[in-house]
């Protein structure tokens, strides 16, 4: 009897898992298939196949300019967040000072504060600085939200390193910075790389800060997509969505690869 109940429970679990997967993945598949449609309106399944919407994305300034801005913002935010977040993680992991735990909580807080609250706060901060509507507002805003993510990932990478290695480096004649550069950073390089990948994605996908801080002049790709959905649904959106999905898969794949390399390296 208990065997029956067990297998019934397991079947239910499988069903639930499968349903979850379908609901998560089905929309993506529908969008990807639709993007190859030739008709000037959305249709599923496609009546004729073409690449016209992809061509439209790459050829019209309406789409490609925001895409290039998004790329620029994501690269700047990635660089800023990776440097700041990595140093914060190293300081938290290796430093010995009072209030460390409190500082750590403070530094991860942008991850738990609702994004709208962050956006509003930055809006009021940037307004008197005349930063609103400039790419700089987005560089700064996205760096702020990506930094804690980098910090958390690098901290977890640091946990698997041996602090004695840095002490050894010091005793062998390396000053603090050279020990950092030659010993600590190589040991956590995979964590830093995967953190950078996530930072890039967080910025590239981000729409709330882009709306609040970008104004009419600094329009990122997600913001342009959002605007375009409000009036009419341009099938170019499906092509862009497909490209974004591909980008995410590529970047996450690279991050996962870096992680597994690190795991193999840290194993004895």
């Amino acid at each position: 009897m208990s065997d029956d109940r067990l297998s019934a429970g397991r079947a239910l679990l499988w069903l639930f898992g499968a349903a979850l997967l379908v609901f998560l993945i089905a929309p993506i598949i529908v969008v990807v298939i639709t993007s190859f449609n030739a008709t000037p309106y959305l249709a599923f399944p496609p009546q004729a196949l073409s690449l016209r919407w992809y061509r439209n994305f790459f050829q019209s300034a309406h789409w490609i300019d925001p895409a290039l801005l998004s790329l620029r913002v994501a690269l700047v935010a990635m660089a800023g967040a990776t440097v700041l977040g990595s140093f914060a993680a190293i300081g938290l992991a290796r430093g010995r000072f009072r209030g460390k735990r409190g500082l750590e909580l403070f530094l991860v807080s942008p991850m738990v504060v609702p994004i709208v609250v962050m956006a509003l706060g930055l809006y009021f901060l940037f307004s008197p600085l005349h930063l609103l509507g400039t790419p700089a507002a987005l560089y700064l805003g996205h760096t702020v939200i990506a930094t804690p993510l980098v910090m958390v990932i690098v901290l977890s990478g640091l946990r698997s390193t041996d602090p004695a290695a840095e002490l050894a480096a010091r005793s062998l004649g390396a000053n603090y910075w050279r020990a950092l550069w030659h010993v600590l950073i190589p040991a956590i390089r995979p964590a830093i790389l995967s953190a950078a990948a996530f930072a890039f994605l967080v910025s590239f996908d981000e729409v709330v800060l882009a709306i609040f801080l970008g104004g009419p002049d600094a329009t990122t790709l997600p913001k342009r997509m959002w605007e375009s959905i409000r009036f009419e649904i341009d099938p170019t959106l499906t092509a862009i969505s497909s490209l974004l999905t591909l980008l995410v898969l590529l970047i996450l794949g690279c991050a996962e690869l870096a992680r597994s390399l690190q795991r193999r390296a840290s194993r004895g």
Partner: protein
Amino acid sequence: MQEPGTEGALTLRRLTKHYPGFVAVDGIDLSVAAGEFLTLLGPSGSGKTTTLMMVAGFTPPTSGDILLNGRSVTGLAPERRNIGVVFQNYALFPHMSVAENVAFPLRMRRRPRAAIEQKVAAALDLVRLAGLGQRLPRQLSGGQQQRVALARALVFDPELLLMDEPLGALDKNLRAQMQFELKRLHGELGITIVYVTHDQEEALTMSDRVALMNKGAIEQLGAVEDLYERPVNRFVAEFLGESNVIEGRVEPAPDGLGWFIAAGGLRLPVRLDAAGPPPRPALLVIRPEKLGFANGDASGIPGTVRELVYVGDFTRYRIGVEGGIELILKAPNNRHSRRAGKGDTVRLALEPGDAHLLAG
């Protein structure tokens, strides 16, 4: 033995480390002679690592001074002290090959490439790892990794080598082999070594001198034999080897001899120090191997065998004597030594010079 304050390879003056609400190292004075192998021995938490970390420059002392070959290095950054350090878990750089690990201190000193290659090869040769330079640390056994750490700490000709429980992670056989190797290297290179361990056997086999630490202070500093035969207090007597420690008082007799009278009335013959009056109250320390079974029936301390354990090279007896006192006796298992069985009534022999008197 040098007095603190005179020039040794390493001199510690009133070295102290306070942590909030806790004294980890409590004003240590120590002078290590050039070429000496000195061991800091002590139970876990006695401040050995903290002392070593202050000498290496990783932990700033609260007060006191550290002198290396006569020059104070107390405020100096670790990379400017020219001290080799070997850690318990080796602390090799996992992303560098064995040769790159050993080359690291020379690269940091910006030595020419040819000189580096030559020194690295010589250092790997010294620790018998020639030919393994291209391996990564994780491709080596624990013992080999420890040799790499040693080569790396020696390759830049440091003025002092510090080792913190370097053999703690190795199994017993490998540990014995590495102890031997370390002694060989010490002899060949003539380098000054300060070695930390909580393993008294390791300290006894390797050291020229031992500093026995307890609660952040040095209880006794001296040659191994001094500490074992002439402990200055109860802690030293009980930490090193096995001891029978009996509380009581001393009754002088003529000819530099006397009686030690335990609380329960047991009387034991002792030799008294000519220098001063006997301590009172007093402690008597008797090493188990100094006790034996008496030949005649009339003389000796009467007792009963409560328990015996055969341990291979010797047999360990627990013998109840007068006044509710139990003494441990170790008798070698050879044809010359007498045996006894459980429950036997025996008489114990003790040479007056073999018992060591302490202030109680």
